[in-house]
């Protein structure tokens, strides 16, 4: 009898991978179809990111850097949309750029167009798309004196100073540089975000918040602890928290239930695997 129980437990560790795949698929798809939302406690680092945005006054300029591609868009795109909703609600001026992966620009423009339309904001008046320039550190340092050193034109190929918004945001000296940026929002999927902190925050003192994919989020907690960044949105959970603080319900809040289901499934699987391992060692 005991032998049979142990054998059964041991077999729990030998489920076919295809069944595991099917379970993962179902755990993701069913909550999405059922469309449920369950509230959860907001992480402190997201709250302080929200407060950093909330402190800004109408007309203040934020620079959003969308340094990610389609492969991490499910995590970072909801952050972009939530932050843009917040920004346009508060009548902030938005600049968008990217310098890590070119796809980030397109993802950024898509998010920007979607949210700007919702709030009736106009291109060139309320927001500008600077474009994509490769070179990471080179771009950041090049922008320090004058953004036009790197972005002589905007994404549509027109000079930056030909837009009415430019004079408004460039400040008294008429030159747009880091001094005019009240908050930098880095949406990051790779190393590029480190350089925003290590160069632009360290040298030019621009306050910043970061929205990162979950893979690199643990690393960014060191920057949050050292107050080099004011807030941090980590992965889908960070986006969902920001949506909760804003009082909207977007893709992130919806996805969190699937996230919950798959996490439970994976922990259960690890548990079964270990149980079977122990049973195997008892038998031999």
């Amino acid at each position, binding site marked *: 009898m005991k032998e049979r129980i142990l054998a059964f437990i041991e077999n729990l*560790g030998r489920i076919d991978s295809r069944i*595991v*795949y099917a379970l*993962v698929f179902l755990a993701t798809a069913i909550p999405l179809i059922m469309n449920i939302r*369950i*509230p*959860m*406690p907001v*992480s*402190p*680092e997201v709250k302080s990111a929200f407060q950093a945005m909330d402190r800004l006054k109408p007309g203040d300029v934020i620079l959003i850097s969308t340094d990610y*591609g*389609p*492969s991490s868009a*499910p995590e970072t795109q909801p952050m972009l949309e939530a932050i843009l909703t917040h920004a346009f609600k508060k009548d902030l001026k938005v600049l968008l750029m990217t310098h890590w992966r070119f*796809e980030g620009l*397109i993802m950024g423009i898509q998010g920007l167009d979607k949210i700007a339309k919702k709030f009736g904001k106009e291109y060139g008046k309320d927001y500008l798309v600077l474009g994509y*320039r*490769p*070179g990471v*550190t*080179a*771009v950041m*340092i*090049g922008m*320090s*004196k004058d953004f036009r*050193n*790197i972005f002589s034109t905007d*994404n*549509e*190929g027109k000079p930056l100073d030909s837009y009415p918004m430019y004079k408004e945001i460039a400040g008294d000296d008429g030159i747009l540089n880091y001094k005019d940026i009240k908050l930098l929002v880095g949406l990051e999927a790779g190393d590029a975000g480190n350089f925003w902190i290590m160069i632009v925050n360290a*040298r030019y003192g621009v306050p910043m918040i970061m929205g990162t994919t979950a893979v690199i*989020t*643990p*690393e960014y*907690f*060191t920057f*949050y*602890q050292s107050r080099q960044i004011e807030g941090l949105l*980590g*992965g889908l*959970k960070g986006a969902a928290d920001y949506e909760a603080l804003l009082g909207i319900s977007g893709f992130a809040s919806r996805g*969190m*239930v699937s*996230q*919950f289901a*798959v*996490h*439970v*499934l*994976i922990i259960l*699987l*690890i*548990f079964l*695997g*270990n*149980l079977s*391992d*122990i049973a195997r060692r008892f038998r031999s």
Partner: protein
Amino acid sequence: MQTTLPVLLTFIMGMFMIAMFFMPQFANAESLATRWTTIIWGFALALGVDSLLLNHFRKIRKGGTQAIHSAGLIIAFFVTLFWGFYSWWKIGNPFDARSSFLWMFQYVYLPLDSTMFALLAFFIASAAYRAFRARSFESTLLLIAASIVMMGRVPLGGVVFVAFFVAFMILVGVYFLYESSKYVGIDRFIRMIVGLAFLGTILPLFYPEYTKAFANFIPGLADWIMQVPNAAGQRGIGLGLSLGVIAFSLRILFGIERGYLR
């Protein structure tokens, strides 16, 4: 001559950029150097593509099923390239909203790129199930930290965690007590204490109000783990790493390390 001059150039440019850091009034010179870098980067992009294409042209010449795949790659490359140039010439910007090139991005490139990475969710689940074993003190610690973070970051995580917690703590506690018999001295004592500590943690859960507090405790604990031990560990790794990078950079500047000139 063929190596000395480039090494000298590296040294000069490196020292120039370091000097520029201390003279921010010359930011224009600094940004000029960085501008050059960007233009050179642009040309350098051709390098990877060239070897990719040549490699697949060779595979086509070899024939077989691989030739069909390679032909697909090369056709996809040139179709995309001409499509991009066409949109550029026609509309003035291939990434304009009216451009058909953007359609290609939206419906071909985007699903391929994101599904490639989504595939990993299946494999990570299957791999964790097969290989993640709490066989040593280290791996047990790793597993516990991972579980707390995973459950602390989702809705309802705390509730489910209570159930898991009870089962797991009993298991690990008993395991450590069992293992302690194999050791002597301080090592045995540590394992016994750890085992008893694991068992002791489930005692408060016999009171419902504690269980409720505990369910809310998990997200908080996940926050704490991320902000304190995780930040400490990441910082330790990061400091070690950046010291290493700086040492390596100095080796490059002084011409000791020349691998990049190969």
